[in-house]
């Protein structure tokens, strides 16, 4: 086990390097992404300002915090949007008929996908999320969170990346069965957009919808880390929220392992 951990780490580092090279090829699209993130941050900030101007006390948090929340929602999209997940790669391999090669590699398929995915996400975090957040911090004079909130946020963000990976991975597995992922992806995007609290915070949802969003795992992806950042979950609430994320990670990990086993048997029987 220990030896294999060493190999895993080195494999992971190799993927990280690889992704970095991949991304540095598309410099133009990097800058476009940066400009886009910026325009979006700027405009969501204005939407909230306009809403607060009419009715400052409805949302439950003061305007500067609401703007921090909204700006984070835009910035984190660079790593949490489903298009960064492994499902597109899996689908492509299925279509080309080369998925067998990936499955037969002497490394667990899920770990392989995770390492590959984390490589891309770390690079995007360092070069897209971080710079735009720093720029936003000065330009929109955002407030800094307290130290515990900040640490909680970092921890929660790692969890949300993992939850998002598992959900995307499950979509990828489904694509091996359905052979077409476009519509599934579309539905998933819509659900995520609505119930994750990315654009509109879940605490202002009407109560019935609020209950649904509590049951679903999507709030682990945006709402929980962002709420921790602005101090909406503090102390025990924060630990509870982190616990919910962790529980979802376990559930999704188990579900994806089971599903992977079933799908692979099926793929093997079909013979690709």
């Amino acid at each position, binding site marked *: 086990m220990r030896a294999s951990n060493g190999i895993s780490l080195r494999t992971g580092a190799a993927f990280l390097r690889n992704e970095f090279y991949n991304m540095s090829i*598309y410099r133009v699209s990097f800058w476009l992404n940066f400009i*886009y993130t910026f325009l979006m941050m700027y405009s*969501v900030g*204005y939407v909230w300002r306009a809403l607060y101007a*009419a*009715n400052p006390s409805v949302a439950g948090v003061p305007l500067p915090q609401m703007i921090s929340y909204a700006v984070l929602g835009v910035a984190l999209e660079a790593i949490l949007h489903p298009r960064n997940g492994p499902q597109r790669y899996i689908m492509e391999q299925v279509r080309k008929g080369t998925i067998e090669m990936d499955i037969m590699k002497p490394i667990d398929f899920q770990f392989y996908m995770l390492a590959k995915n984390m490589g891309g996400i770390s690079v995007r975090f360092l070069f897209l999320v971080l710079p735009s957040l720093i720029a936003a911090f000065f330009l929109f004079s955002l407030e800094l969170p307290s130290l515990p909130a900040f640490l909680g946020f970092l921890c929660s963000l790692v969890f949300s990346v993992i939850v998002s990976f598992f959900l995307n991975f499950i979509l990828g597995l489904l694509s091996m069965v359905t052979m077409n992922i476009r519509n599934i992806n579309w539905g998933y995007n819509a659900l995520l957009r609505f119930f994750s609290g990315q654009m*509109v915070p879940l605490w202002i949802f009407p109560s019935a919808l609020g209950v649904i969003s509590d049951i679903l795992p999507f709030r682990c992806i945006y709402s929980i880390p962002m709420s921790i950042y602005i101090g909406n979950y503090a102390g025990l609430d924060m630990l509870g929220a982190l616990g919910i994320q962790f529980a979802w990670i376990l559930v999704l990990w188990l579900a994806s392992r089971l599903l992977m086993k079933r799908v692979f048997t099926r793929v093997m029987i079909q013979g690709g």
Partner: protein
Amino acid sequence: MRNIRLYGQFIRVAVLGKVQYKADFLVGIVSVLILNAVNLSLIGILVYNFNTLGNWNIWDLLFLYSFWMLSRGIYGVFFWHLSDLEEMIVSGTFDAYLVRPASPFLQFIGKDISYTGVGDFLVGVLGFILAAAQIGLHWHIGQWVYFAICVLSGALIQVAINWIGASLCFWTTRSNAAMYITERFTVLMQQYPVNIFGRYFQIFVTCFLPVAFINYYPSVVLLGKAAEVQLWQYGAPVVAFLLLAIAAFIWSKGVKRYAGTGN
């Protein structure tokens, strides 16, 4: 005249190609409806909590959104595949259009239609009827005509913006990233009244990327949202015409350049 007949033929073939996949058609429409429901509900939840956005209430916002959907539907059905150009250039399939005795643009535009636009248009019609009833619109015939012209202009503005975006790949071979980002930005802009975004943004989406003429200015005029409507705010058809002219110019430059280098 020959071109129109030819385009008619192309579209007929494209439609016949699409109707083979009935399930795909239905799923496509349903996913567009869901996506729109999500967008509208999110705005709905915001306005439900805050009552108004600027001086726009929920029905005004529905009107704005439906206006956009009507024009987006028209654009989407016939021009959604403008973004395929990048792949055709990269893979070299576009070259086939250059050797055939018909305009490359006609062939490219006639190669496909998209039914996501049908879903958008449906949402537009339903939303418009609902909003019109709630706002209590009593337009005279001139306003209806202006409304129809503006919906069409809005569609053409979207065609022109995407046409320009796609044409860029004659120079850069990659254009989809830029098109995608413009699209996402436009989507956000069209859902809210532009005046809430501050002066600089308003200048940007009026003069440089004139997406405010797709639905915002026509809605301002038709709903009487400005204390005093200025003449240029009626300008959507003019903007559409100018943009189309620019797009056609860039495209023809691009095709010439592409054919010239002999790729």
